[in-house]
């Protein structure tokens, strides 16, 4: 038990929590438990959970390969088209899952929000865990496939964690906006699938940007372009080109999204319990 009252807590209207970040740190165990809960529930029926994390992306990859390679006749250069799409799908799915998770997190945990205090950022942060676990499951299947196709990843593979972080930053930034807006306007729930549907095509999941020089700069405005290109570059040992200015744009936009997302979330979170 704590000895003396460790601090005096003052509650006032519109008081900006001076200890917000310290509080967030103090609630890291809750963050861990919520993340663990989500993962546990998802993988509770182990066979089904894992299968679901695998079947869906594999089918999607096959479909995209067919559409872009056979129907659209896009060039894949020196890489089998299937592999190209597989490596592009990996970061895309990480983003999708993380974005969806974060976007639905606050409304999905409304029973907690209206009954217990904790820094609300814990909720979207903890929702990223499921996406991350799914990503590793998929990665564990992708890497052997890459080897089977005769590609041996090189030192570039070591940079993969940086791109994973980039994916989470973009997903969290966008997710914070969506989740805070969803509390007030429930129909933002329907906007998420819409964004993802468009994103699927303006993100080079099914094609490579270095064969489209005319479009490259325009595509780079989408922060996911730099992400997908980067992951492909890591996994395929540099057989696709990494467009560095594009990556720079991606990082800047990602950070902007995160900063504004946190700002907006913090601004609205104090009203969550009243309107949720």
């Amino acid at each position, binding site marked *: 038990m704590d000895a003396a009252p460790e601090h005096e807590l003052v509650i006032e209207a519109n008081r900006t929590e001076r200890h917000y970040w310290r509080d967030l740190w103090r609630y890291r165990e809750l963050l861990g438990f919520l993340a663990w809960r989500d993962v546990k529930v998802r993988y509770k029926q182990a066979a089904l959970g894992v299968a679901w994390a695998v079947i869906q992306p594999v089918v999607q990859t096959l479909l995209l390969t067919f559409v872009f390679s056979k129907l659209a006749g896009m060039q894949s250069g020196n890489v089998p088209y299937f592999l190209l799409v597989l490596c592009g799908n990996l970061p895309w799915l990480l983003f999708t899952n993380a974005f969806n998770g974060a976007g639905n997190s606050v409304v999905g945990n409304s029973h907690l929000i209206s009954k217990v205090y904790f820094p609300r950022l814990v909720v979207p942060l903890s929702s990223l865990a499921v996406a991350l676990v799914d990503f590793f499951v998929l990665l564990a299947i992708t890497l052997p496939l890459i080897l089977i196709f005769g590609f041996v990843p090189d030192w570039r593979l070591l940079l993969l964690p940086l791109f994973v972080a980039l994916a989470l930053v973009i997903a969290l930034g966008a997710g914070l906006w969506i989740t805070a807006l969803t509390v007030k306007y429930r*129909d933002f729930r329907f906007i998420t699938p819409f964004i993802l549907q468009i994103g699927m095509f303006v993100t080079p999941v099914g094609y490579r940007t270095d064969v489209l020089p005319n479009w490259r700069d325009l595509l780079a405005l989408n922060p996911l372009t730099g992400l997908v290109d980067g992951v492909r570059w890591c996994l395929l040992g540099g057989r696709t080109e990494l467009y560095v200015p594009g990556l720079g744009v991606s990082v800047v936009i990602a950070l902007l999204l995160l900063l504004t997302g946190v700002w907006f979330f913090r601004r609205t979170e104090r009203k969550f319990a009243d309107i949720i």
Partner: protein
Amino acid sequence: MSLPAIEVSGLSKRYVIEHESRHDNLRDTLHHAARKIWRRVRWGTTFEKEEFWALRDVSFTVQPGEVVGIIGRNGAGKSTLLKILSRITEPTSGQIKLRGRVASLLEVGTGFHPELSGRENIFLNGAILGMRRAEIRRKFDEIVAFAEIEKFLDTPVKRYSSGMYVRLAFAVASHLEPEILIVDEVLAVGDAAFQKKCLGKMQDVSRADGRTVLFVSHNLASIRELCDTAILLEAGSVHTAGPCYRVIEAYQHGLAGTTTASVPKPEAVLLEKAYATGVEIETLDGRPQTAVSVGQPWRVRVRFHTASSQPAFVAALGLKSIDGTSVQTAWTPPRDLAPGDYEAIFEQDRVHLAAGTYSVIIGLSSGDRGLQQFETGRLDIVGEGAQGFFPRTSGVGMVLNSMTMSVARLS
């Protein structure tokens, strides 16, 4: 020990209710915004906004180690006060100073996940209530023993009986060790024996360790038993504060007040049939009430209008407990009614239900077909089991004892 543990000064909370519409979706909001601008330009007016002060200028202090009961009718602001103290929502104005680690228990089993096992939920729920992992691990065995669920520790809680579920939830909650504990009316659920155990545990906690407790309940008996002092809230303000018995007295005296019984606007189809026009909950001498003391007489009057003749018309009254269980129903004998205005009266010599909050449901039907059914309001039944008519021969339960009892020697 000179500084109070809780210092509340000038606390107010305002909710704004906009009458035009609810903006649950973006389209409505945009539409509303457009109309608002149009109205302002065209007429120079805006939509009517109703302000509702859930709390208004509430001030009190609580000393360390004090156990304070908060009582008041529904809508008096008790829950809002607890929500602000728990930092779930923020006040509109005023200030609170809390000195010490706070834990609040506004609900039992917050965050329980049905798919997870009892063991997993203990950790999850503990973390949600603000316990450290090490702390939970240390108290784990004690919690399990308290909940009496050893055998089902690894069963998903969705397979638990509701009793087991509540016991587990309570067990976790009652092992919190904050310096300030805030408890809402969570003891209303769970079986009686376990309630007693929890009350006992809470009492131990506060008496032994000098813990500060704020406790909301409708159960005046448990308030009297647990608390030294009490605060009576009325319409968002402190009505009386001080020694427990005095505040309870003030509460019981002040029960008569304005009625909150209401009737909904009838749907269009009902306008040609029949619909309720007014409901009153009152004492037998006609004073409107939203709270009735255990054992006292009470009456409900339902006025309704029949627009066309209604065969086999029935007006019904139902009481539901806070957890949704139907407790009592009564209906008038079926009667063919000509168009006109009528009043149905439900009278009872003494309320024989235990203290608590009940919803009052009104139903109208004709020829076996339901016309209207609605919750007209909440009824607080207050007081202790053994009050007035009822002798102390009834311990626990929702229905108070009106049996005659005797023991006779055989042969």
